[in-house]
């Protein structure tokens, strides 16, 4: 079996939003929609303060609550671990938005572009009306994963079939790959570090692991 997951090393992340921007580039998301972003989290009181950076996106859960509540089966859990949305089926009811404890999903009802009502060239060639008024979220760059099946490349190892955010990360905080493959980069990384998953107590089985210390 294959279970694609992401491992994010919080020790490395500097909150620069390169992944946020790379994702917006790669997925042509409209202004205000960020399929992934990095939280800038300050805790404590002066002078005993910490500031941490936590990238968040769709967790591609084992038991996706979005999939459970979706009335249309637009949201599906694939055998390789990806949670996908069929834009042509989705009715934009937002039930999945309410079900997701990771604020990963959004619905845009109006057509908007970076500089107002008119698209610039790069937006024009990539504008996809199918994504208006339906639920959308991080796909783990699903097209690239699917390409891997055709080319024999390995997601997480070969950039062409690895999510854009992972490719872009300048601090090397992100790794992607098959958790069921003990030799994959993520498996090895997770074996040698301490990590947690977000809101694990909710039983969603998120597919994103956050590394916080060595073992």
């Amino acid at each position, binding site marked *: 079996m294959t279970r694609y997951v992401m491992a994010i*090393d919080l*020790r*490395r992340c*500097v*909150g*620069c*939003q*390169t992944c*946020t*921007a*790379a994702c*917006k*580039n*790669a*997925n*042509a998301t409209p*202004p*205000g929609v*960020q399929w992934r*972003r*990095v939280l*800038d989290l*300050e805790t*404590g*009181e*002066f*002078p005993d*303060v*910490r*500031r*941490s*950076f936590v990238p968040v996106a769709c967790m591609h859960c084992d038991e996706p609550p979005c999939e459970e509540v979706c009335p249309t089966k637009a949201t599906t859990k694939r055998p390789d671990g990806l949670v996908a949305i069929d834009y042509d089926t989705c009715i934009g009811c937002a039930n999945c938005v309410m079900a997701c404890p990771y604020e990963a999903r959004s619905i845009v009802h109006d057509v908007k572009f*970076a*500089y107002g009502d*008119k698209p*610039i*060239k*790069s937006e*024009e*060639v*990539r*504008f*996809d*009306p*199918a*994504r208006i008024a339906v639920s959308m979220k991080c*796909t783990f*760059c*699903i*097209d690239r994963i699917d390409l891997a099946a055709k080319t024999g490349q390995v997601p997480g190892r070969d*950039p062409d079939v690895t999510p*854009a955010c992972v*490719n*872009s*990360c*300048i*601090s*090397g*905080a992100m790794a992607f790959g098959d958790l069921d493959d003990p030799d994959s980069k993520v498996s090895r990384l997770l074996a040698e570090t301490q990590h947690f998953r977000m809101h694990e107590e909710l039983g969603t089985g998120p597919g994103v692991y956050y590394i916080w210390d*060595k073992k």
Partner: protein
Amino acid sequence: MSSTTNPQSVRKVPTYCYNCVAGPDFMNVKVVDGVATEIEPNFAAEDIHPARGRVCVKAYGLVQKTYNPHRVLQPMKRTNPKKGRKEDPGFVPISWDEALDLVSAKLTSVRAKGLVDDSGLPRVAATFGHGGTPGMYMGSLPAFLAAWGPIDYSFGSGQGVKCVHSEHLYGEFWHRGFTVAADTPLARYVISIGSNVEASGGPCAVTRHADARVRGYKRVQVEPHLSVTGACSAEWVPIRPKTDPAFMFALIHVLVCEQGLDKLDVAFLRDRSSSPYLVGPDGLYLRDAESGKPLLWDERSGRAVPFDTEGAVPAVAGHFRVEGAISIDADDARQQFDVAEGITAYTKLVEHMAKYTPEWAESICDVPAATIRRIANEYLENASIGETIEIDGQTLPLRPVAVTLGKSVNNGWGAFECCWARTLLATLVGALENPGGTLGTTVRLNRPHDNRLLSVKAGEDGFMAQYFNPTDKEHWVAKPTGRNIHRTLVPIVGNTAWSQALGPTQLAWMFQREVPSDWNMPLPTLPDVWFIYRTNPAISFWDTRTLVEEIAKFPFTVSFAYTLDETNWMADLLLPEATDLESLQMIKVGGTKFVEQFWEHRGVVLRQPAVEAQGDTRDFTWISTQLAKRTGLLEAYNNALNRGAGGGAPLKADGYDYSLDASKEHGVEEIWDAVCRASSASLSEGREVHDLEWFKEHGFYTVPMSKTEWYLSPTLEKQGLRYEMPYQERLLRIGRELGNRLHEHKMHWWDEQLSEYAALPEWHDVPGRWTQQIANAGGKPEDFPLWLLATKSMQYHTGGNASIALMREVAQNVRGHTGVIINAKTAKSLGISDGDRIEVRSHIGATYGDAVLAQGVRPDTLVILGQFDHWATPVAKDFGMPSLNTIAPMSMELTDATGSGSDIVRVAVRKVERKEAV
């Protein structure tokens, strides 16, 4: 996936991003049916680029930069002769022919009048933006500028106050470090004082520090607010602003007065520093009467001998009786000592630092003495003195500790002390320019720029040769040759290609308005023609409301323009260039470059048109060639290109000749094809020659380089040279000489700055200078109880990208990009809640923004990210963001001896109604 049509063609075009000085970095542009859609890393460079072929967040805005609907897409000329913020410039489109005719007519008339004016100042001035990066986008313009002759680069756009200015000057002086970094891949302990390297260090620094964190190095961030770098550090020390010298003096105190010489790197101090040099009763080196060479105490023979005496074993510490020595003061004034007490420079240091205890520093810095002492001791412990490492077959000392300094620590008053202390802290433990330690990265005042090791030449007194501006009576430049007077006022900045831009650039602006009463030099004039490119001083310098009025007085301003902005609002001519993704250029990469670009390769990389130039924008090389042709400088321009002025390598050298026919006009591709061939031939020593087509496909070409080239100390060792540390006899002397020259000309307006020339720096009330300046300007210091600092943002830092919508969107995820960071408790005491509109007022004006409440900032400090407060730049003018620049004064009192100022101002803050906030 997001394309709704089936693309006919998808290409990935290799190129580079060098929008900030921390570059260049490699990237690919994805082009779908001729339209750039995405920026991606260039993984072909993964093994040679320190950031593994990745670019930072700014680069991802380049697609929008290309298609930004607010771009200037054809040449424009001003129709409203009146210039001012309230005057609509009335730009109208014109043809390139008309535009080039206009500018070349102007230039030709200037040439006819003479290249310099009656005041001896160049009639043509140019201002380019951040850290030399515009050069990476201006094609062959440098060849035109070289062909032209004298050009005044005096008018800064933040140079000296937004960079790490003192580090540039003193860093090159002490260890050929124009910028200075930790040897992060080997470092175990880094004291980072205000250095926001995780925001401004680019992908290379971020990659290196992330690796170091995972490896387990400890970085202590000493800074008034919890920056991104502080966030990623093991410890945050919230120091009181501008008290860093006191903190560092106390660290030195712990090392030399509490731990003592035995714990330090005695061999390094003895052999690589001037620690053993004997200082006489007049504070100058005791010198050999005959040769004039500094003396040291030879423990073997038990007497004072010239520093370079073969076989001598120098005493590092002690007081010694010396007979028959002399000292040499300013203007070669010699004093003879029959008998004198010679104290080693090291012992002078120890005695000097005795008073600077951690307890003394505690009250100044608001940092507990125990913390300072612990940090000093951790630093010493981690230095692992005695340890070695083998790099490329060479055994070198391993000293994995470093001290790094950031903007505002590193410029303005107090910066000299900090640079000295930083270099000294490295020297004491042998970590200066050794593996793991504190390293310079590149040189700009010295040459050659791409290999700083080659800049090391033996100079006087056993030190490296320095190329100061003369201060002796015969050679001192009494009549300034540029409007910021760098050659006259700042000996250490020298007079090479970069020197002028590193002069006291705010003086150029200040003196346009008013010169000091005892000014006895020709009065500064305005340049006849001013070129600006990738710069917006009306936003990025200080006292910007007044600055705009100065800019409006410039008679003929030519802006190579991207959008209309606050500076080119006053321009007469806008010439739109084909920008990042649309034009052709080759630059050098690799070696060691600014910030943390430490490579194990060197080579060249091509920037190429990934897409067609938008509108009627033109490749900069075409514009440059046209300017050269129309001003009759074609031959000189081509010759400059042949010398290598366009970047890459000279077009002709031993073993190859791709030089251009100097008499002919050459096309853009032809010029860069020659550069491609020459560069590859030069790098491979003739083994490989690649043309433009090859580079268009492959993007870059590099050859390996040994990592040992990162470290300067082995070169000094090879040449038997010493670092000029700890005692600054030379600076003391030239400071006195400079004083003599100015006083001979009855000028005393630079006297306060002359106080900075000291052999061993003393603490002076650095923060007090800011309150004093308010009082002197007629204000009440108590009305401005808080500090306002500016800090950098990776998303915006020098990107010229304020009008990129994507950047605005993603930057909002990072704290501070929505307004003014204020301590939550302070805010509460002032009745300010998160998101409230607030006024931040200094004694010269006010700026407005939304309050961003935080715990990670000192209660006495406010912080503004980046520089905004735009009123003309599209998109940015609607941000409602504040800027320190609007309310920071340009002041002689706040200018240090290098001519720089610090990015900090005293302010008051209050909540205002939203409508007031304009």
